[in-house]
Every structure is written in structure tokens, then in C-alpha cells.
């Protein structure tokens, strides 16, 4: 729900367990309490649909029959225990500032963290208003002391009763295109070269030559689930391509097939029987899918600079749902 700072503070005073998204300025006006937050002024709301609002904050109240919960902050050095710290039955909600060392660490190494796929870990990468990319830094907030952090991560670990089993789901509307498989020799957020049809090529030049649409991600098939890596910039002069998530060696990527109308495809392909408890969607889907003013309910939540479904993903809607056992 989208609330004014005053309304949010009233909710915080009730002691409810909350996750909050909003501009840094709005979050900085919130009182200490049982909340974690991250900077981003873009949201998917139940009433207005997609919108940008620097003054109000988006709040998800954990409405489940929670048995226990705790807020924990992590440093780059301790991020690796995020899943082992989680309750045996429950979920962990994580927010990491974009472009921080912890963002890089999580992007590259989360798949290696113990129990990272066994425990549901959902969350997002905090960002800034797109007009402020050059002048503002993304931050997260530890609501217990209303402390603003530019590095590390804030996590809400939630324990649920045994009859409720949460799972993280992804909705990726992009499909691999018909072009050749693309591989990379090294992991990282940028690549100078790629291996295509057995040949090592200048990847930036290849993308220009093939008139690739950089709004489309690279898609890899992870045993049934499409995992995107979004293209951030193609710098042909410097001979490099940068990404919003790392590419990994030994993985076959394909440029995604073009999508004519994201909002229409979204409406057609999202699971109709889903009951999301928490969701987030990518800023690139918001931009390229022109989601401002368009409805994505029941998938509501922050529009983010990266989504976390156990590991970091891009251009993907992520949500948490519970199965009743």
C-alpha cells in the first residue's frame, strides 16, 4: 500500500513488521520501528498501477501468522550466511543497495551460499530516481534505529507456522531468440569478448553489427527457468558491454526474442491463480514495458534495480506465495 510519511509512521508505531520502499528522503522521515527499507521511488500499486512518487512510501505489511521474526544487517563479509541464518520454515526478505560491494558480492556468489535454494530468499536491489542516477546513491534502512546504509544488506527473517510453506516464484516473459548461443569466458558485470559459434568475438561490435536491441536481455535456460542478464550499456569505443547482473562462464545465453507489448504479454501470461504475498518487478520492465499507469495487480510492490529470487535476476517479476500444507 502507498502511504504518506505520516500514515507510515502511524503504522510503524503500531509495532507491525513492515518492509518499506521509497525515496531516500521519504524513508529518512520514518520513525524507528520494526521495519526494513530500501530506496526506490517507483512502485506497482493496487489502485493506480505503476507510478513514480518521491513523497510517499510503499509498504508491505507481513500479514501471515508469523511465529517469530528478526531484522538483521549484513556486511559483504557476512552475506554468505543469509540463508543459514534464516528460520527452517519461513522466508527471508533482503534489500541491497545497487552498485555497492554487497551487490557485487551477492550477484557473483549467492548461488554458492549454503542453503540459498533450500530457504526462500526474496528481495530486491535498491535504486534511485532515474533522473538522479549520476548524483544520488541507493541506500537501505535498518528500521530498528532508522539508520541509513549505503553498503551491506538489511534482511527480515520471518518464521511461519509449519502448515504454511513459502516459495519464491519468478515470472519472466522473455524467451530466448533464434540467434546463436553466446558464452563468456569469465564471470562479471561486463564483457569485452564473447564466444559465439566457437569464435571469440568483440561483443560490443557483434551487438552493433547484428543491430541487437539492448532493451532485451540475454536469457539463459536454467533447467526450465529462464534467467535474464540485462544489458546496461554497449560501449563500442571502449570495446565493452556492461550488464545489470553478472554473466557466468559455461552458460549458454541467447538474446531474447522481441516483445511487442510487455503489458499485454504480462496480462496474458502471469499465473491467474497466484496469491502473491510479496512481489517486486524490474525498473527495465517498468520502462520498456511502459507500465506507468498500467495495472499489474495482484502483483504489487517496489519497482527495482534488480530482483532477488534466491539469487540475483534481472527484468523479472519475483513473488513469494505460500502453500498450505
Amino acid at each position: 500500500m502507498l502511504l504518506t510519511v505520516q500514515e507510515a509512521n502511524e503504522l510503524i508505531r503500531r509495532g507491525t513488521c513492515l518492509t518499506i520502499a521509497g525515496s531516500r528522503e521519504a524513508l529518512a522521515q520514518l520513525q524507528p520501528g520494526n521495519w526494513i527499507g530500501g530506496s526506490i521511488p517507483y512502485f506497482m500499486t493496487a489502485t493506480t498501477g505503476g507510478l513514480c512518487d518521491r513523497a510517499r512510501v510503499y509498504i508491505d505489511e507481513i500479514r501471515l501468522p508469523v511465529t517469530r521474526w528478526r531484522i538483521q544487517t549484513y556486511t559483504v563479509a557476512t552475506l554468505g550466511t543469509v540463508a543459514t541464518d534464516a528460520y527452517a520454515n519461513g522466508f527471508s526478505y533482503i534489500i541491497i543497495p545497487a552498485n555497492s560491494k554487497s551487490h557485487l558480492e551477492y550477484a557473483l556468489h549467492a548461488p554458492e551460499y549454503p542453503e540459498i535454494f533450500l530457504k526462500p530468499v526474496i528481495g530486491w536491489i535498491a535504486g534511485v530516481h532515474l533522473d538522479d542516477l549520476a548524483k544520488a546513491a541507493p541506500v537501505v534502512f535498518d528500521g530498528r534505529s532508522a539508520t541509513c546504509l549505503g553498503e551491506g544488506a538489511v534482511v527480515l527473517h520471518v518464521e511461519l507456522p509449519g502448515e504454511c510453506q513459502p516459495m519464491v516464484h519468478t515470472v519472466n516473459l522473455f524467451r530466448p531468440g533464434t540467434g546463436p548461443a553466446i558464452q563468456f569466458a569469465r564471470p562479471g558485470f561486463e564483457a569485452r569478448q564473447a564466444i559465439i559459434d566457437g569464435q571469440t568475438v568483440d561483443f560490443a561490435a557483434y551487438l552493433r553489427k547484428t543491430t541487437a536491441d539492448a532493451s532485451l536481455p540475454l536469457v539463459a535456460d536454467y533447467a526450465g527457468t529462464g534467467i535474464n542478464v540485462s544489458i546496461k550499456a554497449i560501449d563500442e569505443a571502449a570495446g565493452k558491454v556492461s550488464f545489470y547482473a553478472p554473466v557466468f562462464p559455461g552458460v549458454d545465453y541467447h538474446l531474447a526474442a522481441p516483445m511487442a507489448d510487455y503489458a499485454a504479454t504480462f496480462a496474458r501470461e502471469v499465473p491467474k491463480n497466484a496469491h502473491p504475498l510479496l512481489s517486486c518487478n524490474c525498473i527495465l520492465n517498468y520502462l520498456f514495458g511502459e507500465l506507468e499507469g498500467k495495472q499489474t495487480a495482484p502483483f504489487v510492490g517496489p519497482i527495482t534495480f534488480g530482483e532477488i529470487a534466491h539469487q540475483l535476476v534481472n527484468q523479472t517479476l519475483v513473488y513469494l506465495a505460500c502453500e498450505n500444507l
Partner: protein
Amino acid sequence: MIPSKADPKWAALVKGEVNHRFSSAAASMLFFCLRTKMRSDNSAATLQQCVDEAYAFFAKYERTLQQDIKAIFN
């Protein structure tokens, strides 16, 4: 009921010899990760570790993954 870890299908799954498309993102990511691990080190110890991880995942999400279990082990 999921089969015991001794069922050879577990080893085949983590090695990528069973080409199953999982219904859950978590399962897909887990098996992608386990297969990557097996490609870099196919020792018996790593295989056992990967089977243990796969088994623990299926044991926890047995009910949710019923369709996958049926397709893989039947």
C-alpha cells in the same frame, strides 16, 4: 514419498543426465548450480554432497514438487 538417496536417478539428476524441466524456479536454480559444481569436480565426494542437497530440497518441498517427482522417478 521421495525415493531414497541410493536411487540412481538422484545421481543422474545432479549430473544433468536426466533432462527434466523443473516447475519451480528454486529447483531449476538449484540443479543448474549442482550441475555446474559437478562439471568442475565430478569426484564421488562432490556427487554425494550434490545428491544430499538435492534430496534435502525435494524432502522439504515434496508436496509442492509432486509433479516433478512423478515425472522424474516414475
